[in-house]
């Protein structure tokens, strides 16, 4: 089954949809991987913040850099989610 002219993520998702019994597992893998890394980064940033407030941290910039990293990873996860949902919607809108 060939999917032409839709786009990279959409065609990959369509192939995954035909391989597995339900089309949900492919999206879940991509999403959970992105959310997992976002969760790790948030946890690390939270620990650094707590250390800063209790006065244990040596440097002032370390919690800020960790917070920045967490923000970047979260933005990435949000963008990945947006693209995946958009691809899913494109597939669902196709007339059979």
């Amino acid at each position: 089954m060939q999917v032409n002219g839709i786009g990279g993520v959409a065609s990959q998702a369509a192939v995954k949809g035909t391989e597995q019994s339900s089309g949900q597992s492919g999206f879940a893998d991509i999403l959970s991987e992105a959310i997992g890394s976002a969760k790790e980064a948030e946890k690390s940033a939270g620990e650094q913040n707590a250390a800063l407030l209790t006065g244990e941290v040596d440097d002032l910039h370390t919690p800020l850099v960790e917070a920045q990293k967490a923000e970047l990873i979260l933005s990435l996860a949000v963008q990945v989610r947006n693209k995946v949902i958009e691809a899913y919607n494109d597939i669902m809108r196709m007339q059979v």
Partner: protein
Amino acid sequence: MAFLKSLDISASALTAQRMRMDIISQNIANATTTRTAGGEPYRRRIAVMSERPSAFETVFGKALGGGVKVSGIVEDASDFEYKYDPGHPDANEQGYVAMPNVDEVEEIIDMMSASRSFEANVTVLNATKGMAMKALEIGR
């Protein structure tokens, strides 16, 4: 997350410059200390910076490097200055007091260098973050 490694490199530089600043402030604070725990006057300390190796990720066959670290704090081996002050409790038989080998002007210049280096690394960090945010705008 390879795009975050650049942030780690800049953060290591911020840590190293802050440590260098600590050493400079210690030197300036002790510029007139004639007696330390060892009995000698205070000896000026210098921070030795070295490249921090990164175990992974080679680009063009050469390891990219993991930033900078302060590999050691060494004492300046130059001679003490002698000041004539017979009434001082630390004066020797000739009436001279050994003063620390700290030149305040040199330390202030080092302080400016450390401060500018810190600012430069913050600029690099912001630029890297800006690049990453721009990349996330692709296809929005």
